[in-house]
């Protein structure tokens, strides 16, 4: 059994927070902090922590509650201050990110922002009157793809075109990042030599580049095209970097599908993710679904959660099961959900939908 190594530290976020919020976040117990997936900071409403499948308000002493009236409230000025801190007091340096609704922070964390959107013609120019910030805690799970990797290898120097699919927040990007790391580094255990890899990281989630430096370990043979749209990025990678493998996150449009075909025509392998509940769901999508099956993605990794437990399975292009594990290695499976209330049911329903085809 491989043991995944979890990295990602809340203290790396708290140093960006305004003093009052920082004091509260620093008081959160290490165990809860290690489980925290998101920190939601909204002007005039209680500070909220999001865990796997449920959320809780945070009190001034760092404890969690269901009662918003007893929770710590964030001021409007604090949200504004947080925004400027996240931008390193240099809004212009992050204006493209802001127009896309998020900022990538040093350490690989991503902060989603909401406020009043400013348009210039048809395009979003920026955002003002920032009202809320949602900091997503990025955690690298090195080794979480070790077990499934032999099923996506097609030899010691080649891999199958692979698609990772799941509903939101089931760990697609985490899995993709680790697959990329193994492809690039190579795996002695699996008998795999490392391959030249390019990540087209449109939303800076895979490598989480900060000032050009990848904050996550993506392997020594990996080049990152950061903030680049997938169609252009795939073309640029093929022309400039001659990769053996191209890694992209969240395929979904017809243009994405055409770019993937272009990469295949150029002889590159693709490892990608997509939002879907299962391969059938993905196949039904116009343009994009045609990529699954013979002559397309030859391996599918499906992630999901059932009864509070994460599962992972690998199928071939025809849907034949190659591997299944009901406890995905290294991924905590939301045991907190067992003690949760309220929103838990919604989160659970959303994730368990992934199991619909399994039942």
């Amino acid at each position, binding site marked *: 059994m491989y043991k995944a190594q979890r990295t990602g530290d809340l203290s790396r976020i708290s140093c960006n927070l305004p003093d009052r919020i920082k004091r509260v976040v620093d008081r959160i117990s290490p165990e809860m902090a290690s489980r925290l997936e998101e920190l939601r900071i909204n002007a005039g409403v209680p500070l909220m922590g999001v865990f796997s499948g449920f959320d809780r308000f945070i009190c001034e002493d760092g404890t969690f509650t269901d009662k918003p009236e007893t929770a710590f409230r964030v001021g409007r000025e604090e949200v504004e201050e947080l925004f400027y801190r996240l931008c*390193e*007091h*240099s*809004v*212009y*340096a992050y204006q493209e990110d802001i127009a896309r609704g998020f900022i990538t922070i040093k350490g690989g964390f991503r902060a989603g922002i909401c406020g009043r959107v400013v348009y210039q013609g048809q395009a979003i*120019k*920026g955002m003002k009157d920032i009202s809320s910030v949602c900091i997503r805690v990025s955690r690298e799970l090195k080794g979480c793809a070790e077990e499934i990797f032999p099923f996506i290898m097609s030899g010691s120097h080649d891999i199958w075109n692979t698609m990772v699919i799941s509903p939101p927040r089931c760990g697609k990007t985490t899995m993709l990042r680790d697959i990329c790391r193994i492809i690039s580094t190579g795996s002695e255990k699996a008998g795999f030599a490392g391959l030249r890899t390019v990540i087209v990281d449109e939303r800076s989630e895979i490598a989480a580049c900060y000032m050009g430096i990848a904050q996550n370990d993506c392997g020594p043979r990996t080049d990152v095209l950061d903030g680049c749209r997938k169609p252009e990025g795939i073309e640029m990678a093929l022309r400039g970097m001659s990769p053996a493998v191209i890694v992209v996150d969240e395929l979904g449009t017809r243009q994405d599908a055409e770019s993937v075909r272009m990469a295949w025509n150029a002889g590159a392998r693709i490892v990608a993710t997509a939002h879907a509940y299962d391969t059938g769901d993905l196949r039904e999508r116009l343009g994009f679904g045609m990529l699954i099956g013979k002559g397309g993605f030859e391996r599918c990794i499906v992630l999901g959660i059932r009864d509070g437990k994460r599962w992972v399975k690998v199928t071939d292009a025809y849907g034949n099961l190659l591997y299944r594990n009901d406890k995905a290695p290294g991924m905590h499976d939301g045991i907190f959900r067992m003690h949760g209330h309220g929103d838990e049911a919604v989160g659970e329903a959303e994730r368990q939908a992934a199991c619909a085809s399994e039942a």
Partner: protein
Amino acid sequence: MGMRLSARLKDRQLALQKLKDILLFLENEMCAMGKPLNKVFEDLAKGNYGGVWTPVFHLSGGILKEQSLNAGSAWRIALKETAATLPLTLEDLDLLRDFGELLGKTDREMQQAILNMEKEKLAAMEQKAREAAETTGRLYRNLGALMGAAAVILLI
């Protein structure tokens, strides 16, 4: 003495001219390269491009990076702490105090406009300093020479 006072006036003009040049550097690094302010200030100080302004930008960059203050506050603190090393008048320092206030708070287009506005302000300040160096500087030099000559005559 007269020569020294005259040289100080010249230094003042050169310092303001240097700051005007630095604005071009800032414009390139911020608006074209999109680097955050702390990095721009750090690079400016490291590259020794800042001349007499190097300590101000070095300190501002450090404050921005470590204390998470905004550029306006960082600049004011740095300017206050390094004022003694700058060949500027109190009036100049007053006018420059708000230089960092709008830096970093808007998009590139606006930052460019702000830097252009600062350039115009600095051009006016430099022009005044140049005139002062020419007129008052000449006066100091002549006065110095006169006093020197008077002292020699008295000694003889």
